């Protein structure tokens, strides 16, 4: 039996109308992911978009795929369950900087270290958007927020280095306003088997407009390589482009020093995902007759 596969078009991917602020980078990400789905003809029915809570967390409502808008910081546990039992599905995860690195840190840690197969996009606007302007783990030192009226006192967490420290198998950074680079990066992430950690610089004009200077590009450094993603010199004409082989871990660690000003694939390696290993273990177990389930307990 063959199921007829429908051609996926941009308009098929629309669901509810988004409710983000004007100019929010989440719009661009939504469109970017849709573009990838059209480009690679990913079937909406086979795609699950999982998210936590935050402005970013609303994305599943706006994307006409399967979707699970979960609770704050807990997108990875749900994704893990889905990935373990349904290898046929594409799992996209949307999570904010607070959702990822504050309340959700432990799950992200384990998602990365277990190498659960999914594309994880960390929407990094360096602020809590939905709860209105509180300091997040990636907020830059000195920024005045509702919870840091005297300016944030902490050095932000470096999400790339965090992922590298956990033995991540795919670590990349991109910016939503760099349309081409974003789609290329998400595509590479999607093609990777395992946990693809993608840090995405995301604009929040409402609460943190100065986080990303999207009108200039002289601060951007692209990591460029034939096995990576090409630097987007059209989107960012003044950016520097450096060669970096994604298989070079120490190089990746060294480049990560300049995060968040570096975009590209820092590191990629092949490694079986936890979900694959788990399924293999089940498959390799000789099966027993369910009608004799209790026979082993006979006196």
């Amino acid at each position, binding site marked *: 039996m063959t*199921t007829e596969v*429908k051609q996926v078009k941009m308009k098929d991917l629309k*669901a*509810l109308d988004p409710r983000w602020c004007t100019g929010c980078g989440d719009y661009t990400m939504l469109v970017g992911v849709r573009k990838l789905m059209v480009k690679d003809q990913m079937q*909406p*029915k*086979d795609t*699950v978009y*999982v998210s936590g*809570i935050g402005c970013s967390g609303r994305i*599943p*409502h706006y994307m*006409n*795929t*399967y*979707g*699970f*808008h*979960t*609770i704050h910081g*807990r997108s*990875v*546990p*749900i*994704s*893990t*369950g*889905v990935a*373990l*039992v*349904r290898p*046929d*599905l594409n799992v996209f995860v949307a999570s904010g900087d607070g959702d990822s690195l504050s309340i959700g840190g*432990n*799950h992200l*840690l*384990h998602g990365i270290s277990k190498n659960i197969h999914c594309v994880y996009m960390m929407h990094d606007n360096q602020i809590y958007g939905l709860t209105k302007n509180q300091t997040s783990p990636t907020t830059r030192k000195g920024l005045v927020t509702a919870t840091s009226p005297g300016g944030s006192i902490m050095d932000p967490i470096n999400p790339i280095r965090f992922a590298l420290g956990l033995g991540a198998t795919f670590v990349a950074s991109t910016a939503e306003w760099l349309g081409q680079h974003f789609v290329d990066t998400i595509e590479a992430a999607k093609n990777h088997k395992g946990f693809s950690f993608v840090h995405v610089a995301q604009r929040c004009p409402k609460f943190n407009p100065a986080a990303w200077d999207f009108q200039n590009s002289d601060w951007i450094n692209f990591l460029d390589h034939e096995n990576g993603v090409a630097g987007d010199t059209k989107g960012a004409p003044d950016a520097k482009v450096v060669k970096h082989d994604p298989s070079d871990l120490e190089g990746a660690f060294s480049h990560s020093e300049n995060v968040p000003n570096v975009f590209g694939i820092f590191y990629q390696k092949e490694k079986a995902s936890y979900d694959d290993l*788990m*399924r293999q*273990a*089940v498959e390799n*177990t*000789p*099966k*027993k007759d*369910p*009608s004799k*389930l*209790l026979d082993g*307990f*006979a*006196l």
Partner: protein
Amino acid sequence: MATQKEIMRFELIMDAGNGAQKAGDILIKAFAKSGRFVFIEPLIPAEISPPKRTPHSMSGAVIRVSTNELSNMGSTSDLMLFEHEILLERRLKDSDYTIGGLVLLDMADERRAKDAYAAVIEEAKSVGLKVISFNMDDESVAIIKELNGNGKNMYYLGMMAAIYEMPEEYVAGLIRQVFKKLSEEKLNKNLTIYANGYKNALEVCPETFDIPKTEKSMTDSILLDGNTSLAMGIIDAGIRFYAGYPITPASSIMHSLSKAFPAYGGMVHQAEDEISAVGAMIGSYYAGVPAVTATSGPGLSLKQEFIGLANSAEIPSIIINVQRGGPSTGLPTRTEQTDLFASVFGTHGESPKVAISVSNVEDCFYVPHVARYITEKLRAPVIILSDYITSVSYKVLEKLPLLELDDINDISDDILARFNIKRLPDTIEMVKDNQANPGVPDKMRRVTGLNTDASGNVVYSSESNQRSHDIRNEKLEVVRRALTSPEIIGAPTGDLLLVCWGSSRGVVEEAINLANQEGIKVSALNFKIVYPLPTMLSEIFKKFKKVVTIEVAFGKENKPTEFSTLLRSETLVDIGLGLAQATGRPLKPKSVLARIKDLV
């Protein structure tokens, strides 16, 4: 000279790590295989192997044997064997002995604790116990030294086998079976020790006991504990995904499944914590694969937020909570029934869910089927409430009929009836009407913890929020209407009704039998589904002069137990305090009997 006894309870108490559990297991097998019913409670320290010769290292097995079926651990032990005086002293504190009972005390350590031995023996005698002291023979002592201190348990096993008139060779055969991985040399050493113990017992012990065999055929019987039964039930119920995080006393469900599940196509996921475990379970069910998570008190507290999400997003989900002593870390290896409200009302917001309790090992096997049936019909969370004593105690029972459930609608009415519930209606209204699983074309379902309308759109209007509450609560009403009367033990009218749930059932039943034997009439009402409550309770209660609850929970004057609070609110009947003891130890039929006498 053998005393014939239809029922007896004894215990073997050693330092942790010295093999009391193992010896106990062999004994149980011997009893069961030879046609006696057994019920066993392991005594486990909350630490792993605390230093020997301390009160904390108390480890062992309490074993009840009978010619007839057993439903609980009973009240007190008639015979107790102790490795040394400190354990005897510690165990006396629990007052779990039969006055006039026998204490067998190994005197090996007397040299280093002369006064302590004397004092403890004195104390035991003063509370009415007969103390028989003994010493191992020199050969056994020497072999044990060769075995690096191991093997003492075989000596005690030998003694017990002799005292209970087990044929020496029969038990030796079982030892051979259990230790089949040991080298021939080591095995023989163990057998020698065993034989020496057997011999010695007959010399030191003035009395032996003979527990008559049952007339029932035991050929198809099995020996099962509560948690293993739950694990097997999960497989039989067609659940194929387990996510959990280790916690006593729930962990052994996970251990059993880790071994058994893959052979039936199931998967066990050890999550990083309880939050992640319940999340993965919900993720699996969302993706279409029936799933379960199990935990105990502290883990339940952590899962609350996700349980609320499952409720709001209408994802079926099954959460097993094996209750232990609380609050907080509390008493991880002791029993209590104090998580009822946390299970039913612990999630923030108005988040109605169903709670099913188990009264025995058989219930443990079938509760996953019923939980799956209800949660998939309702698309609301179902909590299964077991407790420490049910989870660890072993029992001989007839081999349970399997269901091999695939489609939930194939569940049998019998199994539902065991939990006092009828089949649910074919269609039950949902907050969200599209409920397809991923992979189905053109039905792309998006779910959320926010409030939505029927199409799944996020809305905050007054009417839509009230609608969601109405529908979620109506699901519980559907269950409530399907509930039949809880099981009535004894006459449906009378002076005194004891209300119980969970593991108290067996104890209460036995207490009622004891009361009947003394001519006292009393009935009991046992709940399986503890939330929602069925509709006919007032009717039932009105037929009794007095209604009280019997639970391993805390209650006192002015402070009804949690279950009692529900019953009182529901029926406005002045439900009293029967027994509400939270000592960590299971209830005793004799304590219940005493309370019955107070009350009638």
